[in-house]
């Protein structure tokens, strides 16, 4: 985190952190080929014991988050908007995490697959739409002072995906 993220530590310490990161990556087998048995064994143990991730929740600072909006285009020209929806608050926390993963992934194809999967679930709820535009944006939270001056959370456009469902119907078993 120190090596990569914006923290209050001085720049010279980041170099040390980067070296430490490299050292631990080697020690934990991260530099070995994916099929290497040692790497697989270490990764398996870390995952089954729940120790594969760090513990820097909401650290060093709290990120803004992401929002995904679906623009539903009907054959008669009507346009409606929908958000990814779930039935429980517990699942809502998970959808927020899913959006974090969609927003943060550096892989365009993975982002597209995840967005498309969510779009398909929206389409099943609105089967008569002609096409769906999925718009992903990052959320900018106001500071306390900005909030007191009437500013509220704002959104910055990141990506948009158009899905034409007439040509590519979603499979019934797919999400």
């Amino acid at each position, binding site marked *: 985190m120190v090596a990569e993220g914006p923290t209050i530590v001085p720049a010279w310490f980041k170099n040390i952190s980067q070296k430490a990161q490299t050292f631990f990556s080697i020690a934990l087998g991260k530099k070995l080929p994916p099929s290497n048995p040692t790497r697989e064994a270490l990764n398996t143990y870390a*995952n089954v014991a*729940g120790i594969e991730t760090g513990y820097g929740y909401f650290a*060093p600072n709290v990120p803004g988050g992401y929002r995904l909006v679906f623009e539903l285009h009907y054959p008669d020209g009507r346009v409606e908007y929908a958000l990814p929806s*779930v039935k429980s608050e517990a*699942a809502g926390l998970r959808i927020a*995490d899913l959006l974090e*993963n969609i927003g943060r992934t550096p892989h365009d194809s993975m982002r597209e697959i995840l967005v498309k999967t969510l779009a398909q679930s929206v389409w099943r709820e609105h089967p008569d739409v002609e096409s769906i535009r999925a718009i992903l944006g990052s959320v900018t939270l106001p500071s*306390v002072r900005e909030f*007191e001056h009437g500013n509220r959370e704002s959104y910055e456009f990141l990506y948009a995906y158009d899905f034409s469902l007439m040509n590519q119907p979603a499979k019934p078993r797919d*999400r």
Partner: protein
Amino acid sequence: METFRKRLLEFLFPPETDHYLAILRVGLGVEVTLYSLSLRNDWIYLLSGTVRQLAEALLSLESHFIPRLGWFTALAGQVEVDENRLLFAAWAFLLVAGCGLLIGLFSRVSAIVAWFLHLCTAKSGGFASYGMDNFVTIGLFYLMLSPLPDRFSLDWRLRDLRAKDPQFLGFWRRVLQLHLCVVYFFSGLAKCLGSGWWNGSSVWRALIRPPFNVIDPEILVRWKNLFPLAGILICVLEFGYPFGIWSSRTRTIWLFSVCAMHVAIAVTMGMYLFSLVMIVLNLAAFAPGGFRAQRKQIGLQPGTAGA
């Protein structure tokens, strides 16, 4: 050298009762049960289809031996069992395992099943899993390896079952204690490195950030002067956890403060399951009783439940 070895063994294998194990078992039983019930309507949605397959494909890059639901769906596909039915069966077994832990019936089997199925769902739903899943995995992993059953379980009272290796009671509690110290220390350290926790902006942002914006910001903003204090307090509590919780003079106040912090997180951010598992782990690790070295050892034979 001999003295060091003796001290190390005394540290790692302190005399211990099974009270903490009962807290861990019942607490994780409640956690797993509520986890299953809270996701019952979205279970299939979160764990079926492309997102799960993508998560499992990425998991295979780490290791092919990490448990996942895909193992079962592949098997089910060969005998033409519908994926949704299989996912429902996994949900039902997880719920039963949670209830088994709660009452202490078939404690060991329940712990193993709960750990395995929860791990499968957390890994297969990797894109939609968060910190709570990690801590449930950690708790169930230690519970599964601990000397079950404890004296408050139905296994002990009705089936006259006793733990085979009670000498490991102290060891597994010690491991849990050390693990929590590492967790809070690094969580606190990471927060200390960000300016937002010192000036209170991170507290504000955490409370107004969707989907954690349970309290209306118009109400929150009236308390703005408390945010820097709250941020620093969180940093001190987490970063100072290994020191505060280990000292007998500050343990009670530290444990109470950390649990209060998690209650506050549950109420103000809606993270009930996350807070519950953290409180359970803290109480299991550090609730009073664990450090009294001269506690009576539990009885090894049936009929000594009151020992």
